[in-house]
């Protein structure tokens, strides 16, 4: 069953297209990472999936229904971000109870144990929490709700390193125990890539890649060597990223489509082949220009 299905989905704010002609489907019980730079349209997309925003054109279906203002989607989806707001009149303990009333699959035991583990105070009010603790509390709600579609939008902002690791570990363990569809958006791909199955990379509201993380790891290779030789060897290949080292050396990232004999040949003429981390692949793919920040300065 398809949990989320988007066809030519577009969302405009005035003239700006925050989400542009996006087509993809998310299958059941997968953890998908939504990756993109600031302003790529990640949050807008997630809010449309959660039913908070309506789209301008195209089609979006969650659990085969239009999510906007849909009670069934709302009951089966939880959207966790750092601007979640709760009534200041209720304590954290009462909020957990309330969440338990609303979400049928609520795992009270898990919620209470996580709450204790992160040493939150049940008598405190949500507004008075630090940014990190707010994120931690929201995350507990997101995990314990056990919603068939669980969305985390930048869930770890403000958390310290230890809490982040604990969170991802908790997410994975709970996912293994209760498989469900999870969408995780983050700037820090490196941190989450191991627990992801698929990755959806967007830039300016458009889809760049939607592949498994394993495929992404082998998506590109880096080549280092003398600039003129590289240029010659790469003559008609598309470059993802180019970086000049010194006067006549270059580091170029290309798509990993070369056969092993071609690579062997490259090695023979003195070029070094290296793997490119997923983080770097995403960074290069989403960068504003092929040369990265250096281009700004080289022209100055």
């Amino acid at each position: 069953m398809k949990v989320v299905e988007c066809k030519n989905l577009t969302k405009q704010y005035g003239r700006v297209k925050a989400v542009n002609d996006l087509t993809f489907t998310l299958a059941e019980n997968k953890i998908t990472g939504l990756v993109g730079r600031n302003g790529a349209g990640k949050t807008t997309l997630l809010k449309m999936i959660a039913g908070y925003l309506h789209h301008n054109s195209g089609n979006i279906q969650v659990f085969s229904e239009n999510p906007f203002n849909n009670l069934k989607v709302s009951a089966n989806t939880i959207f966790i971000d750092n601007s979640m707001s709760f009534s200041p009149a209720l304590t954290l303990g009462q909020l957990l109870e309330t969440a338990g009333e609303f979400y049928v699959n609520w795992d009270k035991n898990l919620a209470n144990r996580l709450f204790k583990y992160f040493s939150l105070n049940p008598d405190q009010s949500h507004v008075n929490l630090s940014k990190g603790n707010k994120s931690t509390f929201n995350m507990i709600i997101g995990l314990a709700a056990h919603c068939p579609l669980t969305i985390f939008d930048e869930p770890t902002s403000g958390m310290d390193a230890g809490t982040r690791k604990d969170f991802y570990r908790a997410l994975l363990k709970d996912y293994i125990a209760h498989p469900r569809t999870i969408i995780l958006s983050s700037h820090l791909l490196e941190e989450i890539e191991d627990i992801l199955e698929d990755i959806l990379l967007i830039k300016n509201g458009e889809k760049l890649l939607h592949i498994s993380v394993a495929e992404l790891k082998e998506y590109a290779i880096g080549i280092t060597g003398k600039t003129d030789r590289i240029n010659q060897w790469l003559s008609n290949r598309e470059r993802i990223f180019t970086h000049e080292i010194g006067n006549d050396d270059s580091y170029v990232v290309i798509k990993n489509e070369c056969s092993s004999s071609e690579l062997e040949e490259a090695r023979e003429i003195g070029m070094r082949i290296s793997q490119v981390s997923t983080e770097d692949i995403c960074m290069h793919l989403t960068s504003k220009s092929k040369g990265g920040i250096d281009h700004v300065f080289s022209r100055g």
Partner: protein
Amino acid sequence: MWYVGGDVRLILNSDSMKPIYVQIAEWLETEILIQAIQCDEKIYSQYQLAEMFNINPATAAKGINILAEENVLYKKRGLGMFVATDARHIILNKRKNTKLRAMVNELAKEAVQLQVNEEELVEMIRGMHQKLKGDQK
């Protein structure tokens, strides 16, 4: 980088050139080689591996599948994956042919660059080999 599960901590290295699922497959091979897992014994499930190494279960499944394709593992319907009787043999052959050969290739290249002659290189290998064997006793 790895923060989980005691002994396995240093075995997986996410910075390595190798994809995680290949590392998982190699780790399982090593477990079989050192007979931590016996022949015809059930191997870890993808979920156990996912938890042990903090990775997505799909990635872990991919590692298991590599071994299944190489006939190191076989599937019992409804029960899971089991270690094949000749698993060790398959693994040893593969390692000799691929891993060891590649390492020897690197070694020879480095020796040539450093102008180490053949006898010297063989002597170094022999010495190290004897030392390790001795340690094992």
